[in-house]
Structure formats: structure tokens, C-alpha cells
């Protein structure tokens, strides 16, 4: 199975890499002593490393091709973890366990940990929102963070000017998010794929630039400080208590989001979104109003970003435009893609992994982006469906064998 051919290929790859990285990895000009250092041993490491990686890569590719062949024969392709989740005897205790962990989390762990978890949960909610747009309706939206910003600024400004409380602004934030979703939706109705991605990206940047430059409205780059935390029936809470409170607000909001998104997915509208993703022409020809379907996807996706933004502003008590860069959009998109487009559990896992891992891998923080990129590339090649591929609902009929899709 490991022929001379393979070894030769890997060898060539490693030579090529040694050559490519030579200037940055081997040569160093020591400016203090004004000498050139030659670090040959590094070249050796790179050669070995590339050789091994290229070998593993080719091995995995071959396995993948064999996997595809197996599927063509008609093998059930659902991975083990997913089949386990479908089994009630496994899934119910798992849900119970997660529920208990979620309940005791802020009491067991430190305030710092609780705050990290709050941020992660905000990302779960907004990633589930983006999942409607990207995962279900198939509209690549790279400006999604704009709705998050809109929600955050809605709370900050409404509170600053009119003293509106968190609980009043939460639904308003959702509504404003939806409104902006529609405002973005209209001009991009005719666009698809890359064009859509570019225009939405522009939209996201426009919102950020407005927030940055319109000083009278948004206080510019210095942002807004002293945003009040959520109130608890007017009772004064300590900082720790408030954090726990926000944590439970986020748990509630997450459950609410999962509930709503799950219902939407298996409804008339949800099916229309998926049909739109699968084939826009056929979708219209089957009697689905493309305009309406796209706009509802944009609106209902942006709603969650709006709400997430309100909680974000309330949690950090300070916001400025720097929190809402294009980079943030990309991270949210990564949550959806990594987890599994269209799959609710997948997106939740994706968001948790992407927000939590970097927190616990602080030592590697300089390589974070590199790692991100590598993981995404590997995922795209070997599991284009994400960690959890989406499963469609099956229906049972009397006197029929129940086959699963």
C-alpha cells in the first residue's frame, strides 16, 4: 500500500517546502552582531515534518475515496456519534447531563469562567441565527456581525437617551435586527453565491464605519461605557450575582433559540428555505415566492443577532465599533460551517468549540489563526458537511418499512 511512488511524491513535497521556507526559516540576519545566522537544523525539521504530514494526508485522502465508494454501494453513512444521538436511551441521559452541568456551572466555576461561557452562549445564539441564513437558506452572508452591532447599539443608545431597561430593549433589539435584515435583504435579492458574499461584506463594513464616524450618534471609536447590566426585579445584585444572572438569561435565551429554530426548520417556511438552497429555479417553479422566502430568512436570522447584541452590551457594559469587525463575521460563519451547516446540534458544538477552545489554549494564541485555517481546510476536505451533518426529519406510515434518510 505504501509504494515507492508514494514515498517519492512525499519526498518531492518536502524538498519543495524546504526550498519555500528557506528564506524565513533558515536564514536570520542578526542585526546586533551584524552577522547572518544559518539555522540548518530547522530545514531538517521542516523536511521531516512535511514528509510525514504529506504521507498522512495522502493516506487520509485515499481512505476518503474508499469511503465514497462504499457509500455508492449503499452503506449507511451516518457517523457513530450521530446514530448514538438518535437513540433515545443515549440522547435523553445526555440531555439531562448537559442540563445539570449547565445549572451548576456558574456556582462551581469562577466568575471569569462564567463570563467566558456567557460569551460562548451568545455565539451559540447568533450562530444559530446565521445558520438560518447560511445553513438553511444557503445565502452566504459575510456581514452578519452588523446585526449584532445593531442590537448592541440599540441597547446602549436607547438606554443612554431614554433610560430603557434591558428587558424592554431585548425584544426591541430583536425587532430592529429583523428590520435591518430586511433592509439588507432587499438590495441583494437578485444576488447569489460570491456576489452576495461580497455585498453583504460591504454592508457589514458600512454599518461599522457609520458607528465609527458618526460621533454625534454613536460616540465614534471611543464607544459607549457604563451600560447597565440587566436588572433583577429592581433588586441590587453583587457583581458575581449579576454575572450568574446574565448567565442564566443566556441559558434561557439559548433554549428559546433552539426551540424556535428547530420548529422553523421543520415547518413550511423551513422547507422553503432548504428548497431555495438546493435549487433556486426549481424552488420558484414549485410555487415558492423567492422574494418572500429570502427576506424571511434574512429577517429571522438577524433577529437572533439583534438579541445577542443586546445581551453582549449588557454583559460587557462597554461597546465600541472595534467589537464588530468583519473578523467577527468570519468567526460566526466558522461556527456554522465547522459545526455543520443546517444542523442545530452541529452549530451549537461549532460555536462552543470555536469560542471556548481559544480561551483554554491561550499559550498558542499567536498560532490561533493558523490553527483555525488548518482546521477549516481539513474539515472542508474530509467532512464538508461539518462535525454533525444535518439530518432530515423522517415520517412513518402505516404498513411501511421505516427507512432513514
Amino acid at each position, binding site marked *: 500500500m505504501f509504494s515507492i511512488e508514494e514515498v517519492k511524491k512525499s519526498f518531492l513535497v518536502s524538498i519543495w517546502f524546504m526550498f519555500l521556507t528557506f528564506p524565513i526559516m533558515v536564514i536570520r540576519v542578526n542585526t546586533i552582531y551584524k552577522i547572518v545566522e544559518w539555522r540548518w537544523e530547522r530545514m531538517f525539521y521542516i523536511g521531516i515534518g512535511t514528509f510525514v504530514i504529506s504521507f498522512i494526508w495522502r493516506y487520509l485522502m485515499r481512505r476518503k475515496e474508499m469511503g465514497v465508494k462504499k457509500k455508492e454501494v449503499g452503506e449507511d453513512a451516518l457517523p457513530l456519534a450521530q446514530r448514538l444521538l438518535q437513540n433515545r436511551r443515549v440522547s435523553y441521559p445526555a440531555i439531562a447531563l448537559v442540563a445539570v452541568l449547565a445549572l451548576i456551572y456558574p456556582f462551581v466555576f469562577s466568575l471569569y469562567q462564567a463570563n467566558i461561557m456567557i460569551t460562548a452562549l451568545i455565539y451559540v445564539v447568533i450562530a444559530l441565527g446565521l445558520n438560518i441564513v447560511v445553513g438553511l437558506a444557503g445565502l452566504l452572508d459575510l456581514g452578519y456581525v452588523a446585526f449584532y452591532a445593531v442590537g448592541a447599539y440599540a441597547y446602549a443608545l436607547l438606554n443612554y437617551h431614554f433610560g430603557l431597561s434591558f428587558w424592554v430593549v431585548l425584544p426591541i433589539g430583536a425587532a430592529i435586527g429583523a428590520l435591518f435584515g430586511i433592509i439588507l435583504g432587499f438590495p441583494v435579492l437578485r444576488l447569489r453565491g460570491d456576489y452576495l458574499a461580497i455585498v453583504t461584506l460591504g454592508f457589514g463594513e458600512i454599518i461599522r464605519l457609520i458607528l465609527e464616524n458618526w460621533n454625534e450618534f454613536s460616540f465614534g471609536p471611543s464607544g459607549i461605557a457604563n451600560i447597565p447590566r440587566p436588572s433583577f426585579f429592581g433588586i441590587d445584585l453583587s457583581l458575581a450575582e449579576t454575572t450568574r444572572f446574565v448567565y442564566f438569561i443566556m441559558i434561557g435565551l439559548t433554549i428559546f433559540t433552539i426551540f424556535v429554530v428547530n*420548529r422553523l426548520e421543520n*415547518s413550511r417556511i423551513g422547507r*422553503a428555505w432548504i428548497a431555495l438552497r438546493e435549487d433556486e*429555479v*426549481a424552488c420558484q417553479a414549485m*410555487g415558492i*415566492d423567492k422574494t418572500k422566502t429570502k427576506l424571511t430568512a434574512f429577517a429571522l436570522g438577524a433577529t437572533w443577532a439583534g438579541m445577542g447584541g443586546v445581551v453582549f452590551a449588557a454583559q460587557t457594559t462597554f461597546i465600541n465599533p472595534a467589537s464588530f469587525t468583519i473578523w467577527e463575521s468570519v468567526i460566526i460563519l466558522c461556527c456554522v460551517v465547522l459545526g455543520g451547516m443546517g444542523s442545530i446540534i452541529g452549530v451549537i458544538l461549532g460555536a462552543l468549540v470555536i469560542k471556548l477552545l481559544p480561551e483554554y489554549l491561550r499559550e498558542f494564541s499567536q498560532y490561533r489563526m493558523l490553527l483555525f485555517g488548518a482546521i477549516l481546510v481539513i474539515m472542508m476536505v474530509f467532512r464538508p458537511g461539518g462535525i454533525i451533518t444535518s439530518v432530515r426529519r423522517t415520517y412513518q406510515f402505516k404498513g*411501511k418499512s421505516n427507512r432513514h434518510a
Partner: protein
Amino acid sequence: MPDFGKQILAVNGLSMVFGGLRALDRIDLDVRQGEVVALIGPNGAGKTTFFNCITGLYAPTEGDMLISPPRKDKNIRLNGLKPNLVTEQGLARTFQNIRLFQNMTVLENVMIGRHCRMSAGIAGAIFRNRATRHEEQQVVEESYVILQKIGLAQYVNDFAKNLPYGAQRRLEIARAMATDPFILLLDEPAAGMNTRETEELDDLIEKIREMEGISILLIEHDMKLVMSISDRIFVVDYGKKIAEGTPEEIKSDPAVIKAYLGEESDA
């Protein structure tokens, strides 16, 4: 020739120009209630373009397209209607190059067809009130009945992409039927099918006409199927209508023979 009802589709002087190419040149065509009408012609004659025009995917350069649904007592102009509204009026189509929703189940594909006959909105989806649950249940059942009729019930929970080719073609028909049409436009439904599958398709089309009372406009290259099933045939070549008539008339039409010479030996 059996006696057919009123005219349900009337196309007058339909032209479609792409840049310098006249893909359709003043085509007239009509379909009457209960009829099976075939539209034939060599490759690139403009048949699919004709379908795209009446289903609202293309805006024709000139010409009129009128329907008079048997259930209603008025004429409706199709010009300028969006595709989904055309479908809502009762025209449904299939595609020459299969366009199923690949990552949805067979049943869901059919349920999408019923979309325009449903009414649940966002609130209905979230609160799942009694009316929505009832509608959903009903659509599931209706869709299953359609699958049984078309002979696809065994695949109900399979992904559309995993179906054998012939079954995918039939699923296209099932999906179109779900929109509750009075006329069904089939674009080369037998393409890529073997002899046995084509014969089954012949029976299926006959059944749809007889049992469901749906008229059919059919594009097809398989002359055996066309001759056996059609009541009337329209022949187009280079965007122009060159003949129209019963299968017998078409078989002996000199213009048709000329257009097809060397292309079809079994015509």
C-alpha cells in the same frame, strides 16, 4: 379523435430572442382540457425555451400566453407573472436536467410542491397551533398518497439524491403533481430511461390524464412514446413551428421528415 373540452392553454405568436438568436419565432400552440399534446423538434429547436417562457422563467420578447383553468371561469394572462404565481394558477412543470432538491427527502420534495396550497406563516411555525398541525399532517398524508400513485412510496424517507435515475425522473413528476395543476408540462421525462421504464412512464402519463383529469404538454425525443400517447403533436425547428396535427398526420408530413431526416429512424 376523442372529443376534448375547452381550450385551457392558448399561446399566440410567442417569440423569444437571445441577443441575435431567435430561439422562438412566433409560435402558436394550444392545449384543450384532457388532451395530451406533444412538442417535438430536433435539439436546440427551442422546446425548453418555450416551457421557460410560459412558466415565467423567461420574459418572452413578444406574444401572448393565456390560460383558462377548468375550475375557474375566466382567462388569465401569463405574461409578466412570476414563476411561483404561474404555478399557483395551476401550471406545473418538470425539468429536462433533473432539478430535485437533492438533500431533502423524497417526501419533503413532494411537500414542497404543496407549499403554494398551504398557508402556515412564521407564527404558525413557531407556535404550532392546531390549524398548523392539522395542515402539516394533511400535507404529509396527501404527499404520501401522491408518492403511492407515482410508485415511489418505498423511497419515502430517502434523500432524493440517492434515488435511481428513473425514480428521480418520476419524483419530478410527483413533485409537480403536488402543486395541484390542471396542466402538467413534462420536459423529456423519458430521457435516459430504458425501454421498460419508458413503458411504465407511458402508463403513468395515461393514468395522470385519466384519473386526475390533468392535461399534459410533453416535450420528448422518444418517438415511440410520443406517437403512442399524444392526441396532437406540434413540431418546431429553429424556433419556428413547422407542423401540427395528429400522430398520423405528423408521421407523413414532408416538412417533419425533412427536419428529422437522418436524426430519427424510428419516427
